[in-house]
């Protein structure tokens, strides 16, 4: 951008002001935020490696434990388990990623600097969300590949279908992460509630959307059901019912919107209380 876009009205700088010369724009913002997120992730190599290891370790426990206890019956459902687990790692990554990012920035004293940008806080938070979703996809893809390798299972991985369905699905989780991130900025300590929500994702991902129609409108539920069909049965994006797609898009927009609105309200409240940067 060459000049900041207006946020209402057209104020004019006085002649005495040294006019700001902008050399970058939204592309540079997005690139910088994504790059920073990846850099910080790899600068904690043990943590990054442990995250991947634990992801596959818990799946291994479920897989071998389930096979031991339920035998063939369990093996018949392994595809569903893999898809559900893949989505759970994605949702968890997006949810905790944005929540922890916001709270960490507040505790480090860098959140306020992100507030004071000519782009506005919204685009910066959006860029952060993109960065977190991107990184989460990378890690979850590795976990998915390892799951398929360990179990010897094959799944349909039509990117044109899988990618938009998963992205739209985890936008709901991102919205919840924004809610918790905003509450964290305001109330500082919310880890008890935040951790419980992580387990609620399991219930949402396995919600019986075909038996209880209203569960389709919960975060993750509709997308989870569609992802199962896409990855197990090879259903393509354009083969889904328009209603299903509409609910998927609608719930994604709704929960992300709610998340962003709550985040906006909590940060405004934090500014009123003077605790935006305090931790």
């Amino acid at each position: 951008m060459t000049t900041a876009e207006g946020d209402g009205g057209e104020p004019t700088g006085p002649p005495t002001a040294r006019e700001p010369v902008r050399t970058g724009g939204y592309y540079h913002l997005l690139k910088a935020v994504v790059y920073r997120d990846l850099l910080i992730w790899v600068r904690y190599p043990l943590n990054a490696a442990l995250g991947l290891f634990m992801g596959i370790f818990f799946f291994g426990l479920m897989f071998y434990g389930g096979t031991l206890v339920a035998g063939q019956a369990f093996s018949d459902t392994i595809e569903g388990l893999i898809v559900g687990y893949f989505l759970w790692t994605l949702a968890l990554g997006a949810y905790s990623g944005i929540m922890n990012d916001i709270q960490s920035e507040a505790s480090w004293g860098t959140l306020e600097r992100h507030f004071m940008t000519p782009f506005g806080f919204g685009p910066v938070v959006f860029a952060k969300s993109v960065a977190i979703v991107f990184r989460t996809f990378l890690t979850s893809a590795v976990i998915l590949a390892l799951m398929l390798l360990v179990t010897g299972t094959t799944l349909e991985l039509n990117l044109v279908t899988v990618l938009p369905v998963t992205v739209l699905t985890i936008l709901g989780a991102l919205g919840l992460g924004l809610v918790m991130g905003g509450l964290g900025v305001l109330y500082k300590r919310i880890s008890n509630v935040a951790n419980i929500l992580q387990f609620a994702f399991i219930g949402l991902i396995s919600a019986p959307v075909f038996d209880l129609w209203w569960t389709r409108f919960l975060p993750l539920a509709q997308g989870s059901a569609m992802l199962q069909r896409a990855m197990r049965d090879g259903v393509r994006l354009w083969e889904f019912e328009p209603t299903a797609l509409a609910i998927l898009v609608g719930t994604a927009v709704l929960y992300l919107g709610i998340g962003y609105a709550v985040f906006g309200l909590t940060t405004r409240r934090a500014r009123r209380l003077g605790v935006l940067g305090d931790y």
Partner: protein
Amino acid sequence: MADEPSETRTGTGQVPDDEDTDADDATAPVGQGTPALAPDEAAIYVEGLSKTFGKGDEAVHAVEDVSFAVAPGEVVGLLGPNGAGKTTTIKSILGLVLPDEGEARVHGIDVHEHPRQAYEYVDAMLEGARNDYWRLTVRENLRYFAAIRGQDPDTLADRHDELLEQFDLSHAADTAVRDLSRGMKQKVSLASVLAGDVSVAFLDEPTLGLDVESSLKLRTELTRLAEERGITLVISSHDMEVIEDVCDRVVIMNEGRVIVDDSVADLLAGFETKGYRITARGVDDAVLEDLRDRFDLTDVERTGDRTRFEVAADTAAFYRLTDAMEAHDLELAGVETVQPDLAEAFVEMTGGGDGTMGVPADSETAPEEAQVSAPPASDGGEHR
């Protein structure tokens, strides 16, 4: 908290409101009128800023009716004891705290009405070394903070090299910030604020944690920044030398109000005639008693036939004193002027303050402490 000072100094920063300008009220409270500069002439314009935290009996009036203006290119020091309202004032100007009343403008742009336009011009170093990413290298920090301020880091690469050179960080450009000393971290914070090529910067305790040499160099660089780049600086610091060396003007706050807004030179000049330290011979008890009756003598010490005392006097009173001494046939062995520094001026203005000279309560919070208090991050733990 300091007692309310008995008088305030009207400086160059603002003129009193009409209601304060009646003839009987020549010393209307400073910082509570209309700033002398027009909103669109000033780089920073603050009028009637007030902020209260809490309600009822527990309400804390952090900032009360604060007004001042800073001209483009001017360097202003913001002083005050702990709890004086400096940080709340700065954060209110920047829109990080929502004030209850008042307006804040940067280059004529209302920060609260049009924050994005205002942030084109301004950035701030609010948390000292807690202002950037410790896991990133120095250069990566500069590039990142330039990018989030709407700059292409590649285009500003030369400018960043210049900043690294200026702050003596070139050799550490590719070192992770966490591996640097506290003083160097502080310099990285400052450099990252300037990396976005802003024209107005708020610096909260920029020299905190720096050794004497680094502090001196930083002061020189701050002065150079202001002179060569015309950058407008507001520096909140407990380091009086920084304020004296770097700032054109000083705004002193106490109990949420501006009690002094004056040029550093004028402020010190106002105290220059504070007194004299005089050594004389032949002062007996009767003469001493006479001098005590006629002048404000303090710190009287007698050693042999020499008597040393301090006297609070302006130039005229000083000459009356020397006349009196001559009349008593005293031998004047020595005269020194008692030169107050800004620290003394500050203490006097704030009624003594709390002795902490304005060190923000949170400034000494170790970043490590903040890290420990960070919530567990399931996706990456501590990212700093």
